[in-house]
């Protein structure tokens, strides 16, 4: 509940808990390639309730980094800790279970998070309403559009009661209009729930549109190149001039990073 209601007492809780994610000197090699490590010496701290965007070209180990934080993979060296407890992970494809209805997908997450049976249905309805899908409980996954699926997946991730939400290019497969709408919804959900978000993308404007902080990763080896504080007030729009200006600056740096590989 704490992650979702955002009432006064919850704010106090999150204030005590200042760090949501902490990575110290994290490196990752995959056994098969002896070449450059996928991740090399990553130091990263995400504050409670912070919205951080990780940006990089392909091969920069963005997804690997999320898997490490989510505990789906182990770092080769360095320390990964999630002081906030569990981290919920959301993928590029919705990865909803097709044998369950939209509502049942969320209920399963609640059940596995230890929510008592009697509370699951009302909580599911509340989460569906939160992503503007009230009434979609019985919808089958294939009956939903791509954007709706990602909203159900978002509701499912929120059902995990985690203080950290990891998002791996969740909107990459969506059309631009749907993406704009989901940016808006994600921003407002983030503000409502106070959950910390680590958002991976290769879309610079998206990163600037959403994040409080944008972190640029290099590819092979994946290292933190630079980070930017995004001092633009929400609500932002992807077309806003300040967003475009900062995006241009970051894109230039990204292009320089990518060009290094061609030499």
């Amino acid at each position, binding site marked *: 509940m704490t992650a979702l209601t955002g009432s006064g007492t919850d704010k106090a809780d999150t204030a005590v808990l200042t760090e949501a994610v902490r990575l110290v000197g994290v490196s990752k090699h995959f056994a098969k390639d002896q070449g450059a490590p996928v991740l090399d010496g990553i130091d990263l701290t995400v504050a409670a309730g912070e919205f951080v965007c990780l940006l990089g070209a392909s091969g920069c180990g963005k997804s690997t980094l999320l898997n490490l934080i989510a505990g789906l993979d182990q770092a080769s060296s360095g320390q990964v800790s999630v002081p906030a407890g569990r981290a919920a992970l959301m993928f590029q494809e919705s*990865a909803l279970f097709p044998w369950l209805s939209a509502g049942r997908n969320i209920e399963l997450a609640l059940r596995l998070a230890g929510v008592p049976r009697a509370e699951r249905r009302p909580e599911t309805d509340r989460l569906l309403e939160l992503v*503007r899908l009230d009434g979609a409980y019985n919808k089958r996954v294939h009956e939903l559009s791509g954007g709706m699926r990602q909203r159900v997946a978002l509701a499912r991730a929120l059902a*995990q009661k985690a203080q950290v939400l990891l998002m791996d290019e969740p909107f990459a497969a969506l059309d631009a209009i749907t993406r*704009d709408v989901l940016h808006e919804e994600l921003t407002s959900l983030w503000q409502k729930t106070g959950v910390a978000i680590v958002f991976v993308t290769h879309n610079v404007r998206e990163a600037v549109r959403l994040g409080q902080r944008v972190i640029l990763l290099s590819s092979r080896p994946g290292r933190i190149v630079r980070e930017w504080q995004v001092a633009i007030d929400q609500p932002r729009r992807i077309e806003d001039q300040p967003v475009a200006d900062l995006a241009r600056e970051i894109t230039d740096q990204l292009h320089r990073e990518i060009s290094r590989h061609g030499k």
Partner: protein
Amino acid sequence: MASDTDVELSTLGAGLDALEIQSPQGKARWRKVVGSVLPPVIGLLSLLLLWDLVVAAQLKPGYLLPGPGDVWDELTQDWTPDLIGQAIWGSIRRAAIGYGSSIVIGTLLGLALGQSKLLRKTYGPLLSGLQSLPSVAWVPVMIIWFGITPSTIYAVVLLGAVPSIAIGLMDGLDRVPPIYLSVGRNLGARGLDSIRFVLLPAALPGYVSGLKQGWAFSWRSLMAAELIAISPALGPGIGQVLDLASNTLNMKLAFGIIIVILLIGVGINLIFFAPLERRLLRTRGLTRS
């Protein structure tokens, strides 16, 4: 300016949803039923007609090639319904026991092989080989081991059905997209929970097709075993009646029994497996409409 765009975006979202939800445009129920029932009925009738024409052409004497009407008369004669009824009951009972045990054994085997790479490498090829071996080949061996007893028949049914069921489940488990397992782990499903809530439902389509094939094989094996291993001690069975028909040169009865065997095999498929498969595919969005 900013607050204006807020309103626009939320109504925009509702508009997008409305555009993207496809309205169900299914055909009327009765049309669906007619569409799925009519073609096989027409197929059956045309086959009966062809049969009748061949018989009418008198290519073979009537006692060797009886017509559909003769077969029907034979099956509905005063003494046959009782004999055939008992035989059907006896065979179905055996099929149920044999197939039921095959499900238990095949499922355990499939789970074990699906979970352990080593086990699969060691016994997988053997299982595939066993699947392609007609289980009737075991009848002589089993008769020598167990005599003409129910054990012989059940052993043959098991050898026919277990490999299909185990392989179906193993394939189903193999094809579970890794992302579902990652999601399951992230949601906190460990151990048994992971098997129950993620692995098994994800593997269900493969499992069901294995079960379906397993049924076909067990029914086939049962008929073959009953036809070969014949003894009054075994009690009535369809294969036994077919053997009787053959020994007494009663071709009408033989044709009748063949049709009965066919109908039971197809009927079980239509009653159990077809709806189950249809439902699986429909809920997962793997079929049109």
